């Protein structure tokens, strides 16, 4: 066994040193009747060649030759190969949470950089060291809002990613009074009037997508104004952070919390995980933030260095009074995002966002030529819902050609006639003009 270094001699010597007669002896503290008297019923060991054959077979059962036209919370982007080659450096890859800062400065400085990137992109003042994903970050934002406001209700736009909304519901079920779902208008933006009606003195947070699940860019300042008036926090949720290269950060538009996923930077879609959730807010809320935080300090010789800090918020110190139960987060995914963002830089991010914007426009024009209009009229970034009629049929038909065509919105809004026949499609820099044309033609049939 290549992972077990123990030679028979080693085992013998070590058993002697321990004073045990056999390996079984080491388990004498486990009552006989609790032991498993048989080998585990799992398949026999595979050698590495057979292992590769087996996993290649499985991977080949996925069809991924074409970049997906589905976004809906997971976005296929081109990640420069430098990211993965650097990420695989064992010093990063095989480290734990940086509990011993003197020999974890690599991870810590990168986390400090991540936190800064998150702040720059979102326009917020402070960020944590990452969350499990965008959905749990959203749920944690609601919980934080409750801690800050003492209120137990949240208002969430129906145009927030429905999977995020489900997670939010799961998280608050035991402790909260309920969730008010605020409908969206015909332009795909949250219905401001309905929002104003839904928000009251019991509302801890107003949660909206930016861009939202329909791909539409919300009028965040107006929403934040409604929330602020009611004393609620505005939580902005972003699943496609490339948009920040084009759109103002939510912090600059009145939001109090910005959460979401940074998967687009540095991380593959990878069947949905892992991906780095982010969580950013204003300085004033820092002691209510969930999760790890990295801070700058000095060492004994006065040199700048980094440590995990503000841990009195956290479970290992505060236990049941902690701001969250999170321990392991998505550090490596955050590092990948940090690397990709570093490579992009100011110019690259701006260009990438404009490129995505342009490709989505090409898709819109191609779909128009193919006879399909937009389902919603609001402004969008790189994702749009098209009225294609039999959206499920289109998805099935294109799947037979190996193409992931988009998602029918009916799946999440079965009762909303406005989503009937709407296919949500993303276009990124991976979709060349030729692919886009071909796609639109294939949607037509």
């Amino acid at each position, binding site marked *: 066994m290549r992972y077990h270094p123990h030679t028979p001699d080693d085992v013998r010597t070590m058993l002697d040193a321990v004073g045990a007669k056999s390996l079984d002896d080491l388990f004498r503290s486990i009552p006989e009747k609790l032991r498993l008297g048989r080998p585990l019923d799992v398949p026999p060991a595979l050698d590495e060649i057979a292992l590769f054959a087996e996993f290649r077979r499985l991977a080949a059962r996925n069809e991924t030759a074409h970049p997906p036209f589905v976004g809906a919370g997971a976005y296929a982007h081109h990640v420069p190969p430098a990211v993965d080659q650097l990420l695989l450096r064992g010093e990063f890859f095989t480290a734990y949470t940086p509990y011993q800062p003197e020999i974890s400065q*690599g991870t810590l400085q990168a986390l400090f950089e991540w936190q800064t990137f998150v702040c720059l992109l979102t326009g917020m003042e402070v960020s944590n060291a990452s969350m499990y994903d965008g959905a749990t970050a959203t749920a944690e934002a609601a919980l934080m809002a409750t801690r800050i406001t003492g209120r137990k209700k949240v208002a969430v736009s129906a145009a927030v990613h429905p999977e995020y909304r489900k997670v939010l519901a799961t998280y608050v*079920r035991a402790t909260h009074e309920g969730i008010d779902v605020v409908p969206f208008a015909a332009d795909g933006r949250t219905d401001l009037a309905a929002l104003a009606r839904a928000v009251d003195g019991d509302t801890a947070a107003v949660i909206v997508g930016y861009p939202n699940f329909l791909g539409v860019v919300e009028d965040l300042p107006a929403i934040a104004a409604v929330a602020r008036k009611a004393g609620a926090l505005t939580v902005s949720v972003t699943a496609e952070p490339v948009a920040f290269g084009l759109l103002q*950060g939510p912090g600059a538009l009145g939001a109090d919390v910005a959460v979401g996923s940074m998967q687009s930077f540095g991380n593959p879609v990878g069947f949905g995980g892992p991906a780095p959730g982010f969580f950013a807010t204003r300085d004033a809320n820092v002691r209510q933030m969930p999760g790890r935080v990295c801070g700058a300090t000095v060492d004994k010789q006065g040199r700048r260095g980094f440590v995990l800090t503000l841990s009195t918020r956290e479970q290992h110190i505060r236990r049941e009074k902690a701001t969250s139960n999170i321990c392991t987060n998505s550090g490596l995914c955050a590092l990948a995002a940090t690397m990709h963002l570093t490579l992009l830089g100011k110019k690259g991010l701006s260009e990438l966002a404009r490129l995505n914007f342009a490709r989505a426009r090409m898709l819109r024009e191609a779909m128009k030529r193919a006879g399909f209009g937009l389902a919603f009229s609001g402004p969008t970034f790189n994702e749009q819902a098209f009225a294609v009629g039999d959206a499920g049929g289109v998805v099935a038909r294109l799947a037979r050609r190996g193409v992931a065509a988009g998602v029918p919105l009916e799946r999440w809004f079965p009762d909303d006639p406005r989503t009937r026949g709407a296919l949500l499609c993303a276009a990124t820099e991976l979709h060349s003009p030729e692919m886009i044309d071909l796609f639109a033609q294939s949607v037509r049939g």
Partner: protein
Amino acid sequence: MANPTGWKPAVERGAGGAADDLGVGLGGATRGIAYEEPLVFEHGSRGRTGVSLPPPGGDFDPAREIPGALLRAEVDGMPELSELEAVRHFTRISVWNHGIDTGFYPLGSCTMKYNPKSSEALARLPGFAGAHPLAAPELVQGSLELMWRLERTLSEIAGFEATTLSPAAGAHGELAGLMMIRAYHEARGNPRKKVLIPDTAHGTNPASAALNGYATVQLASGPDGRLHPEAVRAAMDEDVAAIMITNPNTLGVFESHIAEIAEVVHARGGLVYGDGANFNALLGVARPGDMGFDVMQYNLHKTFATPHGGGGPGSGPVGVKAVLAPFLPLPVVVHEGEHFRLVTDPKDRPQSIGKLREFWGNFGMFVRALALIRELGPEGLRATAQLAVLNANYVRAALEGTYNLPYDTDSLHEVVFDDKAQKATGVTTMDVAKRLIDHGFHPPTIYFPLVVHGALMIEPTETESKEMLDGFISAMKAIAEEAKRDPEAVKAAPTKPVRARLDEVRAARKPVLRWTPGMKVE
């Protein structure tokens, strides 16, 4: 470890030299060239970029569609580095880190075992990395089959009826498990109010309980480090939804009364939650499902060697007995013949606690974990537990006498010492930990579990060799000696890394949590 390179390890040095000059450590640590490196925001130059993007094509002006107030031309403060500058940056800062690939990492409770390189190759197969979570099921049969297989395999390994792969980490699994417990009780009319938690438990246990609306009741463990049925019996009532038990517990001790404890809890309608963080100790030897646990989370990033990457990602699947199966979170993988699909609609699983995260779980970790399990097979899994326990006991036997053992109960996969024997010298657990760095070892977990004052919690894992343990043992002994002879030298540690001890108090008092232009931290 052999020592053929001409270096003089610390022990051969004698007492000479500066107080903090250890020479070459017993783990081979020496000093070499390294580089100071500013933050990415602090270097680079206007207009540089590290990417090569196509021109957008067409003439699409965002300002024509999006309100001006929502637009920005560029993100202020973003770095501007060439690709080489970026590559150097991360190459340089990486070597400031210690990883498993660098050396021994006996961080107790964290199971820092070797992360197989083959798993990295497999997880990167384009079929896996490129699969979209919302692609039509026909396009992702491989991912679904893999998930299905992993669920079954985990269920067998820990003795459960069903497993969900959704949770993103151990604590997330705890949350999921407690939610199922709550749903179970609710289905029977009363969600109950309390969760019992032993004083040896990890902080995530009470935090997960609280997040789920439960009050926590802390149970004292006995003088042998174990939880005793009497303590449970005394605390158990019809308001108790569940007990959370880590087995072996965080002292590395098997909770040998587990069956009786489970009976006590079950008898009054409660359920037994297992924190599976220490499951490595039991692989192929005993199954939590066979000893009274109703539900347990696995930590794939511990037991099944998926890389922890400086903080995560993790993966915390949860196994359950049949009574809890209806409450499993969504999605659930099902198959008809060769065809797999995900059940995501709550209508099909009306009792489900719902979704726990976007999409279906940390799939990348599933690939790696299943790869390891497939390579180990039944014998390899059992050998894993055996050798992990052998390693911990070997360290224990060697260090008993030099360091105080607060509980002398049998150890499984880890052993907890404290700094009582060093008290007179003024050297603390923190100092010992930092001095280990100078020898070339990552320190154990320190000051946890909380029941031990000044705990040194050592978990070697099965992938470490006897020679490595011998080196570590000598270093621990050398430090104990040094503490007597020259405590200041120990307190001055570490001397070898790019940074000396960092001022954590200052970090918390004057938080600087992000770069700002012109920032100075001095």
